């Protein structure tokens, strides 16, 4: 699969989905697009046909507010049709802002209260370890989310239990709702911290699909401990207007932003050769 093209498709549908709603978590959804493309495009053994297969891989979006990007990915993988994608946050929807394992096909764990998803991911990885399976559990955690103490409980558990089939992907997009992570509660160096917590950890360019894929391949070679790949990303990644927007966590676009978003959708449509409508 052409992973970059898949990333462009995910970005296009994420933008359309949020534009259709009119507002939402653009910034943190876009920063994980390349990672989702690698995971769902080339790495994970998952598909709608395999949803009940216990040997499939598992995915937990611990930073649940990036749900829209996951939903665009699941639509492209065939878990549901395009119309469902635009039911995002509509009254009575089965596609809520934050992922729900009961409501949305393809969602493995309900997340959104930050810090809880990573704990569930450790439980899923532990369950598969107990079952003697070789499948992997992937979790995307936000850099801001790592403010939550529960994440560090989960990491201690993962290291102690030697969950080497748990791969944590830290979306280091440097911002949280109220501003830069370094200004709010300086996270210092995630790689050093994760290593100190018993993980194998290193940093990669989170906008480079080949680099992300290589990192996951490398993570799978690690035995006896979990891995944390720190993804160097940008909030609003891949959409220049949103990247430059300072306040880009949850966006209620003004007229200028609306026009820029429409323009970005057209540009992305040209790139992936689809009708922007």
């Amino acid at each position: 699969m052409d992973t970059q093209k898949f990333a462009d498709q995910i970005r296009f549908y994420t933008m359309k989905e949020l534009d259709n709603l009119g507002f939402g978590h653009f910034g943190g959804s876009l920063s994980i697009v390349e990672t989702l493309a690698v995971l769902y495009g080339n790495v994970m053994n998952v598909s709608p046909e395999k949803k009940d297969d216990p040997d499939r891989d598992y995915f937990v979006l611990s930073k649940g507010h990036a749900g829209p990007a996951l939903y665009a990915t699941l639509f492209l993988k065939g878990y549901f049709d395009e119309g469902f994608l635009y039911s995002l946050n509509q009254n009575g929807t089965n596609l809520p802002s934050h992922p729900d394992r009961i409501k949305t096909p393809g969602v493995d764990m309900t997340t959104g209260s930050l810090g809880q998803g990573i704990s569930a991911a450790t439980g899923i990885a532990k369950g598969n370890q107990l079952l003697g399976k070789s499948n992997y559990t992937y979790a995307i955690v936000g850099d801001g989310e790592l403010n939550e103490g529960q994440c560090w409980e989960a990491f201690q558990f993962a290291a102690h239990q030697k969950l080497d089939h748990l791969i944590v992907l830290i979306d280091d997009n440097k911002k949280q709702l109220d501003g830069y992570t370094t200004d709010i509660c300086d996270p210092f160096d995630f790689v050093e911290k994760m290593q100190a917590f018993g993980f194998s950890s290193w940093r990669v360019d989170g906008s480079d699909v080949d680099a992300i894929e290589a990192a996951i391949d490398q993570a799978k070679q690690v035995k006896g401990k979990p891995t944390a790949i720190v993804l160097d990303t940008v909030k609003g990644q891949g959409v220049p207007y949103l990247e430059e927007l300072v306040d880009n966590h949850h966006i209620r676009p003004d007229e200028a932003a609306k026009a820029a978003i429409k323009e970005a959708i057209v540009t992305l449509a040209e790139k992936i050769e689809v009708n922007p409508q």
Partner: protein
Amino acid sequence: MKNLEMRQVYTETILALAEKDQKVVALEADLASSMGTSKLKEQLGKHYINVGIMEAEEMGAAAGLAVTGFTPFIHTFAPFATRRSFDQVFLSLGYAKNHAVIVGTDPGVTAEMNGGTHMPFEDVALMRVIPGNNIYEVSDPYQFKAILEYAHTAKGLFYIRTIRKQATSLYTGEEDFSKGYVKLKEGTAGTIFASGIMVEEALQAAVDLEEQGISVQVIDLFRIKPMNEEIVIEAAKMGPVVTAENHNVIGGLGSAVAEIVAENHPVKMKRIGVKEQFGQVGKMEYLKEVYGLKAVDISKAMSELNR
């Protein structure tokens, strides 16, 4: 069984369930010594997980284990199982519809020497507001075993509140616990609903009331949610109702009974329990007196209602 401590019942029952079901796992948060679950560690092996002092992770990891098809039995002290990890229990287990069994020990005054910090008078209130949750307060070893076995087979979230040590034996093991209550004494002038350690006090109160010429029925209402509405309405139709609980009167057994009574058959009621107070250190008998949890408090309330 009769002489077993509740913690032994827990261990023995989980071992028996695990023997039949490879998907049973037991989670502990550094209270194995208090709970006496070392036998679980020995015999369950990898299926026994002591996460350390981290209850949020205990609940979250249990949720993940449930996602992969395991049935987690989760133990910690009642305050940590509820108020400390409430959002994790609410969302990762309750809202996410994961099947799990939480056992919270040392409820209310039974925390004794651990004192106010460890003394939950609010755990049932918290758990009651989780939609679809099942809540039990057990009073006897046979009852505890039966409820653990039921929670293993049923689906959904369970919270079982129990003391750790020896409970007064009320049953023989032949009882039917499926209705969520057991009538322990017949009577016609009113009803005392009690749970946990308060059942014994309620029975004593009924004896005292008999001496005053007031014959009341005593019901062990151990299933707090979903509560058996029929028995509560039936009792209200008969006469006044007194509830007795080792918990704040706000949000627990008394509140649950009052809601059913008020909406279906309003009748005079009194709630015996802790009233707007925090816990404190003390021996159980002392604490029962301080918080008004004695048989005399129950009988006084009932005789006032019968005036």
